[in-house]
């Protein structure tokens, strides 16, 4: 039972066919093959086409409610620790573990960042991994190996409120950048 492309079709016996594409011959039937699927854990935010270059693949961002004991939770390292004013926390997850260099946050479609973990002329962005501040000074070469982390930044300049605004989160890694957006309604 199967394919024989060599023998003249008139000379083939029962159970033989001349050609088949995407078929299997089981239990005396010519049936479609089963599917060819992407490995389960390579989907969703873990999806990683290994050929992706120059970008942080599969980046996702979301809002995080700051814990009540927020300042203590993060620890020291001013100016990257919360300054006591209302702050925003944003969760970030990449498609794979990457080397993170710095993060910029842009407001309402502006072409320039409002917050940054690298530019000392801007309001700071704290980068937290498992609740620990990874950057204690402005740096464009943090070299943080991480897939998931949180960003924290003060909203003093916005009167403590992000409602009605949207953020563009730019994560810069050693292989390229990734971008995510968040609207605060």
């Amino acid at each position, binding site marked *: 039972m199967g394919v*024989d492309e060599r023998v003249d079709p008139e000379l083939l016996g029962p159970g033989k066919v001349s050609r*088949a594409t995407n*078929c299997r011959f089981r239990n005396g*039937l010519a*049936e479609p093959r089963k*599917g060819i699927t992407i490995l389960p854990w390579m989907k969703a935010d*873990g999806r990683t086409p290994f050929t992706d270059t120059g970008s942080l693949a599969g980046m996702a961002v979301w809002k995080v409610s700051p814990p009540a004991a927020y300042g203590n939770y993060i620890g020291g390292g001013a100016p990257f620790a919360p300054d006591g004013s209302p702050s925003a926390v944003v969760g970030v997850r990449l498609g794979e573990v990457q080397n993170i260099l710095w993060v910029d946050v842009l407001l309402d479609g502006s072409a320039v960042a409002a917050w940054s973990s690298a530019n000392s002329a801007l309001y700071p962005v704290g980068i937290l991994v498992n609740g620990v501040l990874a950057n204690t000074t402005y740096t464009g070469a943090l070299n943080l190996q991480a897939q998931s982390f949180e960003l924290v930044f003060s909203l003093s300049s916005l009167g403590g409120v992000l409602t009605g605004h949207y953020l563009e989160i730019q994560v810069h890694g050693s292989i390229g950048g990734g971008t995510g957006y968040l609207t605060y309604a």
Partner: protein
Amino acid sequence: MSVQGATLFSDPNGTEWIVVAAEGRVFVTGEGRVAREISLNGATLTGDCTFTQTYDQLLLWRGTGSAPLQMITFDGGFVAVTQTSSGAGAGTGTQVIPNSDGARFFQNRVFVPFIYVGAKKDFVAVGDIGNYTRYKFPQNAFRFNDGADDDIVDLAPFGRTSMAVFKQKSVRIVDNLVPDSNGDYSSAVSDVVTNTHGLVARGAWVGVGRDLFYVSTRGVTSLQLTEENRVKGVDLPLSTPLAATWSRINWNLRDKIRIGYWDNNLYVALPLDDARVVDTTNLATGNYDPASGNLNLTVTSGAAYYFSFGPDELTLVNGTETLTRSGFFTAQSTTVVFNGTLNQPTTATLNYVPFYNCNTAVAVYDFQTGAWAGVDETPYVTHVKEFLTATIQGKQRLVAVTEDGLLRLWEEGFEDERLTTVANPYVDLTVESQPPSGAVRLQLNLATGTLIGVNAASAVNVGTAWGTSTTALARTNLYSGYAGGWLAPGGTVSQQDWGIRWTSTTSTLQPFAINGVTIMNSGAFYWAYVDLVTGTQITTQSVSTSVTTRAYAMQDMDGKRFQQVGLRLVTWDPTFSITGLTDGVNETSTVATGQTRSNTVYSIDQAAWVSSNANDDHGDPWREDYSVTLGAGFNLGSGVQPELEQQSLVRLKMQQRGNSCQLTLANTDGRCTLKGVELEAIAGDRTMGTKYSG
């Protein structure tokens, strides 16, 4: 460059990992674990590579021009191999392990084909026992060359003390690989199995029980281990019945061929025909400039494209080259320029070529039936770079690393999965609660879209005021408003359950706002839920099948008139066609096209099935099809088997003349299994001649 190599790796804890090299980088991933990059510590990876696991470490072979690297820990990454001392009786090698494009681990030592002199790779270095960093020359450096001009392609451990040495044009067996007291193979003997053919590519062999199957230019050939543990070659290629497919192999790309073995099937990845995929989207659209005659088209720098000139084209400028004949090119920048007839629409075609010079199909041999099952050939899916047999949910499964950098599981589920770019991004906007009155509630396209206000007291739309007196009315009025003239430039609005879909007419979705706030991500906002679909997505597609039967001559060599065909089918939501082929040149006839089955119609006198399964009767007999569309409002009732297949006998008229007749059954949607065939014919012309007149 794309994918450069892949392997399985078991760490010291017994955890299995999949290692993939791509675009000059190396990654590891494993079941339920996120991928991570493994540092090359400044080393470069510019071409195809291979890996060899040695105990709990991994060697990376980068070709005969680069030194191998070793990985001891993931965190440490790949580093240069440094010599370590061997234990007593394990060997006394002094030579550093040589450069190579691959090696095999056997009897606790590494076997490395390498070039000793000149450019001929005909030596094999055998590392010290338990120490891959050194080997002893000349005692453990074997040369396999008795005047031949071919290189070693790969080595294959076979049995306890034998190893097959595959060269380009010959196959040898090294037997009696039993180390003496110094760790040397002083009693090993080499014998030629065949000088008529060799191995086409590294990794194009696989052991199956006491057999070793490999791909040569003659086909899939094998070595057998006899009861006396002697090796003998099998002369008749296993692939002989697949002659037509074998004739399609692009032998210039034979080094791409790979073999996998799983579940009693042999999988042979092959570069067929042009060995490339040409995307069907024509990128050449627009008119030629009335003055210059140029048409600029945007492409991706470094990507491959296929173009063809129509009657109106003269040249294609790609960076520094001017092309005057249709063909392939690699974009030198982000723009190419067609030159053609002034002010006329282009008649050229330009198509993206995502994969080229790669495997395009997989031939499958079933050991249980002892026959080939044909080929698996699906664009964007069957482009295998390497086969791996990985452990997935406790079972050994066939995994393919494909050219697009994805890991694919063979023989899983009913459909294929692809990663596709959302050509026209869209947003689904559903009304979750009653929108309150207000002047600024919705605007699709912040620049020029109609600013929709809300009148929560009104049941109907008035001008740009959206009537939302109830949530249900708000849902229907939203679509009717846009259908009635509200503007949403840059996209088209269609009706959805509970709301609308706004689909961009380009590759970019214009900004939009709810309650005056620009929405940039999916989620709940005020009275709406927003689902933004952009970028790439995983899409599923049916497995398209085609089977051509043997030719039915009805034990009569005279001419016939074939009048009716009967097919016994087992189907699930199919769309199939049937073609008749009689002996002769291009003598085909279409028997049926686009045949489908309704999942609501019974073949007996019975009211149509309600497709929401409202009556909880999905499994009632005698329906044409049992596929279901799950979604809002579908009643699961006492249980639904959504994959039930229906059997049927399809009888169709046909008119075809000939001595014998074959049938091709091709299916593009759902599933369609062929269970049996019958043909009816009456006697035709018995005149002698080159062809029947009927």
